[in-house]
């Protein structure tokens, strides 16, 4: 009989497992299973994408690919113009975006008073991050067609990309500036340094690893950006190298060449050469990201 005594005889409540009912446990397991499957799907697609690109393009990654310009014949086509274009674009973009981004971050984090101007800049950075990259391209397009009479130039492309990654650099730099402890600034001020001297000789050097990492990650995002420079005047086929100091030249870039190859009707271009170009692009990306991670690990200091 179910007297209070028999209930008392039961072991402690810890063993009363509510999931013990097979129906409930089944539901729990099924739910967890669905979550795991859903998580695996997107990773599986990524794996499929990487394998697909390697099998399509690996055989085409050879000397010709690096030494030749675009050609009508797939077997004589290379990404030399795109590679030099991308490297030049990135050099110029870094030269423009790094000082601007760091200066803006220093201003917002170290000097800005709580006034309408700093609030405007803050709100604006948030909004710029959501503007589609192709719209930045339209800004460049409007300038090179509207003001320069369709004179396509490397500099317009680099400026477009700089504006695009500026919010990313500012946000990353502010975060690492914020991580510098206040005591270090106070120490500098107590020694008689001006706030500007403190910012440039104490705070910024202490935060530089994070700033560099953020900048390199932003640049590696810019490398893959196709829409903004496509709209801002990059050309598909160029039969000359780009160098950063000749910034009024026409320019191509790796992702632009890939887009060109994918759009061609012959499968040798559309599949093989395009995939080979993608492998080169991804290799450049991977290199940049590895440098960023290396810098982060080597110079990251815990305060």
């Amino acid at each position, binding site marked *: 009989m179910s007297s209070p005594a028999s209930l008392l005889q039961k072991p402690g409540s810890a063993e009363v497992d509510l999931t013990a009912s097979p129906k409930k446990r089944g539901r729990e397991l099924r739910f967890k299973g669905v979550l795991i499957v859903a*998580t695996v799907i997107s990773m599986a697609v990524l794996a499929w994408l990487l394998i697909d690109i390697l099998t399509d393009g690996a055989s085409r990654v050879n000397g010709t690919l690096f030494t030749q310009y675009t050609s009508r014949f797939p077997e004589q086509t290379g990404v030399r113009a795109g590679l030099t274009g991308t490297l030049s674009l990135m050099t110029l973009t870094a030269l423009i975006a790094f000082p601007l981004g760091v200066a803006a971050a220093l201003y917002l984090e170290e000097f800005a008073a709580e006034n309408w101007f700093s609030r405007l800049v803050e709100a604006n950075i948030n909004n710029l991050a*959501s503007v589609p990259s192709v719209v930045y391209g339209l*800004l460049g397009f409007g300038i090179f067609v509207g003001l320069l009479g369709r004179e396509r130039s490397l500099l317009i492309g680099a400026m477009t990309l700089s504006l695009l990654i500026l919010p990313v650099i500012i946000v990353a730099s502010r975060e690492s500036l914020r991580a510098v402890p206040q005591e270090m600034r106070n120490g500098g001020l107590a020694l008689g340094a001006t706030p500007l001297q403190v910012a440039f000789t104490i705070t910024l050097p202490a935060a530089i690893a994070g700033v560099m990492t953020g900048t390199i990650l932003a640049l590696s995002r810019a490398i893959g950006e196709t829409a903004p420079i496509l709209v801002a005047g990059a050309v598909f086929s160029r039969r000359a190298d780009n160098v950063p100091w000749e910034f009024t030249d026409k320019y191509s870039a790796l992702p632009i060449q890939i887009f060109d190859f994918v759009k061609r009707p012959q499968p040798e271009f559309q599949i093989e050469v395009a995939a080979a170009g993608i492998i080169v692009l991804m290799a450049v990306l991977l290199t940049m990201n590895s440098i960023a991670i290396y810098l982060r690990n080597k110079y990251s200091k815990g305060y």
Partner: protein
Amino acid sequence: MSSPTTDLQQNPLHSSRSRVGERIVYTLLQAAGAVSVLTTVGIVFILFSEAFTLFADVSIVNFLTDTAWRPFVSTDSDSFQIGIFALVQGTLMVTVIAMAIAIPLGLASAVYLADYAPQRVRKVVKPILEVLAGVPTVVLGYFALTAMTPLLQSILGQENVDFFNPMSAGIVMGIMIVPTVASLSEDAMSAVPDSLRAGAYGLGATKRQVVTQVVFPAALSGIVAAIILGVGRAVGETMIVAIAGGNLPIDLAGTADQVVNPDIINPLQQVQTMTAYIVQAVQGEAPRGSVTYESIFAVGAMLFLMTFSLNIAAQRFVRRFREAY
């Protein structure tokens, strides 16, 4: 080194005595902050000034109500139509497909990472999702065109699936947006205080019940913000649709000699999105002042308005979610 007395007189901490050089540097820093504001001003100015020039030639009523997008036809011709609706339809179709993939996969990943995954699994999954988020979109476009479309064709039949179609572009775009939705919603779910979870467990709820009936509702505004930002990315995404989505906007105006593409809900037939039109039109040599040239900016202005309002909406939700705890 100057003597102590002059040091006191020129106290560098006193702002009114800061040297000229410092003033200049300070102004330069402020100017750098202003660059981002000028970027927005420049974008808004260039988009809307050209768009309004267009509306001087073409009525804005036509722009909003025409049922076909034929900006390359001469404005004098009878078949000239400039209804942004045709491009918005393409964008909406791709966005709906992408979100149908990204919302369930992204939210499931977020729940798994926030409440189920052991630490070592999380350490593997999160970087992989970051890699996925970092794949250049031109690569995803290539993948949509050369891998996803053939797969759809082999499943649904070659004759039913166009070589360019919003379905394969939308699916790949959805996968691309999974990391955005997942990481932001995971942040929102992790921010739900453990006391809420403990309370529910104390009442005898199972883990599934805690996650779906306590954590999920508590994090809802953050989750909604994540989804809205995902929609914003889908609307503005360019290369995937430019490569794999097609360049034939739907066309409901029957009067024309043009190719008419009246199928408004078939995701297997090619469309054209707003972003794909921009990419197509800038490659032509439309002269400045022509309707085609101005239409590029009008489409850009529309795109800007859409993503801008989505971002404002998302920020509203994030703020509300932050206030909760």
